[in-house]
């Protein structure tokens, strides 16, 4: 029984990473995914910002869910999520101003990221604090990894560098990959690869 529980906890973490990967499988949160992944660093930071909000809002919502009347649960959840996003905004502005400058526009949009409200609705309001936190970490890491990979591929093809480290000696990359069309193309091909890999392993 005890082993069963640890197994399921481990499964909570990995589900978000692979089986329920928000980007490549559920296709949620496409706006930040396409817009912020112009480089690996940007993708990584956007992913971590979402992870922060996701874990905290999952925990808070799992705590208050039993007393929230059904008819007003969406507004209550949105207020809770918006609070954490604003908190994150203050913190980034104060301690990582450079990062805030790059991602600033997209941070408030985390409020309407379907992943966050989606996990609150589908998981956190039916489970305990610990499990909700784990679920938040799993899904958040899944989102972070996907965004980092997508950002890395676009940065390598588009700017000829990886994590800001240039390996082409100043030569230009394929510009299209830094712009919107490249985002769609990369996302499409990565999705194909990811799902092919999933099928082979199941």
């Amino acid at each position, binding site marked *: 029984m005890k082993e069963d529980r640890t197994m399921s906890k481990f499964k909570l973490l990995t589900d978000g990473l692979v089986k329920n990967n928000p980007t490549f499988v559920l296709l949620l949160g496409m706006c930040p995914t396409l817009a912020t992944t112009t480089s690996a660093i940007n993708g990584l930071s956007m992913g971590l910002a979402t992870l922060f909000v996701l874990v905290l809002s999952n925990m808070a919502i799992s705590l208050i869910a039993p007393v929230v009347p059904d*008819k*007003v*649960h969406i507004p*209550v959840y949105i*207020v809770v999520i918006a609070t954490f996003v*604003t908190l994150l905004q203050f913190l980034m502005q*104060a301690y990582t101003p450079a990062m805030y400058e790059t991602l600033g526009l997209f941070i408030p949009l985390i409020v309407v990221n379907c992943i966050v409200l989606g996990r609150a609705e589908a998981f956190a309001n039916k489970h305990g604090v610990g499990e909700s936190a784990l679920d938040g970490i799993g899904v958040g890491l899944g989102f972070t990894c996907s965004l980092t990979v997508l950002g890395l591929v676009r940065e390598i093809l588009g700017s000829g560098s990886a994590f800001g480290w240039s390996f082409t000696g100043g030569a230009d990359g394929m*510009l299209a990959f830094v712009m919107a069309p490249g985002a769609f193309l990369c996302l499409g091909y990565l999705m194909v690869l990811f799902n092919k890999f999933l099928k082979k392993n199941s």
Partner: protein
Amino acid sequence: MAAKSNLTNMVLVLGLVCLACSAVLGGAYVITKAPIEAAAAAKTQAAVAQVLPHFETLEYNADNHYYTAKDGEAVVGYAIESTVVGFGGPLSLMVGVTVDGVVYNTSVLSHSETPGLGAKCSTDAKFMDQWRGFDPAVKKLSVKKDGGDVDAITASTITSRAYTLAVENALKVFDGLEQDVVVPEEEPLTDEGGQDNE
């Protein structure tokens, strides 16, 4: 899971949740206020330090958006904020002008130019370096295509023109300072594609 809804508990829960959230945010605002201001000040300081020689104190003039940099009592130069319309949106520069009216250096505060093309205005060394010590009395302040002395970024003439206009506007502000006249800092950039604008 969720409790059954009635008017009392709906109002009560929503009210309490909003109250708790605003309390948290109010607290966070108070705590982060000082660091946020410090970060903004550090950013300005760094931006000015990039475009002017060594200085000790800064004074901001909010009407004309410029900083007066002083070393002791002597004025080292002026760092003038200048915003024009670029190719993809507003292009904001910090232009450092020394007291003799020569551009000391320029830096980009913010831009929304096309990555890899116009965005080079903040990374391209060749383009950036030509502004170092640019003397408007000697060189003509417009891009070579328009008969001036400014080397444009390849394939980004509109951005280069905007950049040049921003420097020109900053110099106008500087001229206004010398004569103690208030000069409008921003001029709309009309007919971006035309060859004979200016």
